[in-house]
């Protein structure tokens, strides 16, 4: 902190990059992941070791397990971040996962041919089609009927699980199809296919929204729908697209999830995953009020959730203490992310310390006007909203954490 400013008027690019990274809300998500991994290393120094399975050349290790188990939540977190950016929310993703799982398993079971790639692709296509249709229905209710996103997707959350049960007639359908199973269990270049697929989809989504005007338009809707309409953006079509995308990604997550064990569990597949997704998005620094969003941040949040789940198991935290352990980690993280809490600490340090120099600088930090690299890239309106968003995200985050705690306690 003190090194660059007195020495050089133009700090080196690495320092600028680091400083930008630290200012990103999802920086604390990365810190939390590293901290959890360190905790595991303390328990077992070989935790991070990745070995090669001599039988098939696949990589084996705890990190690989985390990658694989993070795939479904990565998918829904990306979809959720887009929806939340428009000022909406999609509570139906967990149920859509169950629907996609049910559709694909039922199809595979009746198709019978357990080696055919064609059958696997048909199952995939069918499941994605149904998921997109559910998403489209959500989008229609939100964009054209004008219902509250919370209510319309809540309806789909209830109806979707019902639909999944109807599809399998209440059974947990199991099927066998090698190509389909490969999606979740196969390896390419030693890495799990499911993680690579998820990564490709996350990067693709990130590029599409950031390299085109799409991301900007989505943010515009979230910040001020009327102004965005006046500016020539068509919110209805965009909203519909965003909900369809969220449905599709939830469908992919559902396929990832059921393909792992080739069984759909209609009551449990994707159960309460919508909360995980919202949490991932919030950890990633997207405000629940809409507006500025970060696909990369949501991905970090998703990875954190997967790491947390696996850490609890690895450390051997007892089942009854698990919800409390998770809640503490998330509350601490949200507190660290909150600018207000951080400013309490810095101001206390500033008033206590005799040298005012460091104190004044950190007090001037929160508005990003100081960082030259930051202000140049973003349009003015953007920068203002970013300050808003970060402040708003923290209370939302804390609320969610207690939600999670409540849900776990109830379970």
């Amino acid at each position, binding site marked *: 902190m003190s090194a660059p400013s007195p020495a050089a008027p133009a700090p080196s690019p690495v320092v600028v990059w680091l400083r930008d990274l630290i200012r990103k809300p999802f920086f604390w998500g990365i810190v939390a992941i590293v901290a959890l991994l360190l905790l595991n290393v303390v328990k077992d120094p070989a935790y991070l070791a990745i070995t090669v399975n001599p039988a098939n050349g696949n990589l084996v290790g705890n990190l690989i397990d985390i990658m694989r188990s993070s795939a479904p939540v990565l998918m829904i977190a990306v979809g959720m971040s887009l929806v939340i950016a428009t000022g909406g929310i999609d509570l139906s993703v967990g149920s859509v996962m169950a629907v996609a799982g049910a559709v694909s398993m039922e199809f595979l079971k009746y198709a019978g041919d357990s080696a055919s790639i064609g059958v696997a692709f048909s199952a995939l296509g069918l499941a994605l089609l149904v998921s997109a249709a559910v998403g489209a229905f959500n989008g229609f209710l939100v964009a054209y*009927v004008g*219902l509250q996103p919370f209510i319309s997707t809540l309806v789909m959350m209830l109806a979707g699980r019902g639909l999944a049960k109807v599809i399998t007639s209440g059974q947990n359908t199991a099927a066998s199809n090698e190509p389909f199973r490969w999606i979740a269990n196969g390896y390419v270049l030693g890495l799990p296919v499911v993680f690579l697929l998820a990564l490709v989809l996350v990067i693709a989504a990130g590029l599409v929204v950031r390299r085109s005007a799409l991301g900007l338009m989505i943010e515009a809707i979230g910040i001020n729908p009327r102004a965005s309409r006046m500016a020539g953006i068509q919110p209805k079509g965009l909203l519909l697209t965003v909900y369809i995308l969220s449905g599709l990604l939830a469908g992919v997550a559902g396929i990832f999830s059921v393909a792992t*064990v080739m069984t759909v569990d209609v009551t449990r597949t994707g159960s309460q995953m919508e909360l995980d997704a919202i949490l991932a998005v919030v950890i990633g620094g997207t405000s629940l009020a809409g507006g500025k969003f970060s696909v990369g941040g949501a991905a970090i949040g998703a990875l954190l959730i997967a790491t947390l789940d696996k850490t609890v198991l690895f450390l051997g935290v007892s089942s*009854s203490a698990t919800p409390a352990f998770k809640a503490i980690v998330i509350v601490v993280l949200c507190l660290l992310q909150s600018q207000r809490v951080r400013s309490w600490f810095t101001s206390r340090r500033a008033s206590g310390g005799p040298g005012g120099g460091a104190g004044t600088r950190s007090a001037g930090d929160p508005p990003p006007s100081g960082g030259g690299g930051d202000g140049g890239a973003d349009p003015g309106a953007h920068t203002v909203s970013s300050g808003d968003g970060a402040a708003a995200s923290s209370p939302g985050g804390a609320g969610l954490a207690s939600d999670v705690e409540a849900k776990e306690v109830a379970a």
Partner: protein
Amino acid sequence: MTHLNWTRRAIGLVAAGAMALALTACSGGGGDTTDDASDGTADTGGLTTIGFVAVGPEGAWRAANETNIQDTFTEEAGYDLKFAPATNLDQKSQIDSFTSFVDEGVDLILLSATEASGWEDSLKRAQEAEIPVILLDRGIEPDDTSLYVTRIAPDNVMVAEAVGEWAVSQFPDGANYIILEGPAGVGVVNERNEGWDAAVEGSSLVKVAAQTANWSTDEGRSVTETLLKANNNNIQLIFAQNDEMGIGAAQAVKEAGLTPGTDVKIATIDGTKAALEALVAGDLSFVHEYNPLFGDMALDAVEKTLAGESVEPYIIVPSESFSDVATTEAALPDRKY
């Protein structure tokens, strides 16, 4: 502009109304129970009305159990069975259905509770209304036998004890084991732990970990995968408290490069068809049935209760165990669930 807004609002209202209707329909299950609430049994044409507060879709075992009960209490047998499954295994929805059965004055209530605790008030209400209650499968806590007529269930403690005894006999020289449990706090989980602990106490088996996998294959696999790594694959025995988790565990064992049956033996409870098939395939080593087909025993108890005869407070449904491939294969074709 205003005109447009009004039309939109009208459309919104209509849609909201439709949605509300759809929602009430969804909450169904118990929906049809309110139909003849006013005149009780009078219009059922001499049929005995029975309210069945059920668990609903949970897995193959539950489906077999509830279908069996529904097939037993048919109109031909002289019963009008009102089936009310829980919404997403939620206890509150069960209490609601239970209360509405009491209010409409059914002749008897069958209850499979999703959660063991919190039933005292509802059961007292039924008692005041002089409606006998018979517990199917799941017990209640605290177990106050004055609040219900009888509980008909395979005995979880006994079944888990049998699994424990098998485990002790398989590993006379000791072994490291892990337990995959259902959700913490559920009665079944406590009972299955109790039976297992009683059987393995004093043996040289070492419990390395016990984690919940929420009855699901997916989590059974994910939990086992991590527990194996946390213990450097030094696990010889896995006790999965239901079949689904055990099948998931077998997948994780194979994924870790171990062979189920030789490196790691997996024992499960329930005895679904899928589990017996897995046993024949060598994935599972021991499956103890938890017999869901006790419709005839329930019918017998219901008849005695309604006739005013005394019934044992706890009726144990006999269950068998499978460990041998040949006998399991022979039993497979008759498996109903």
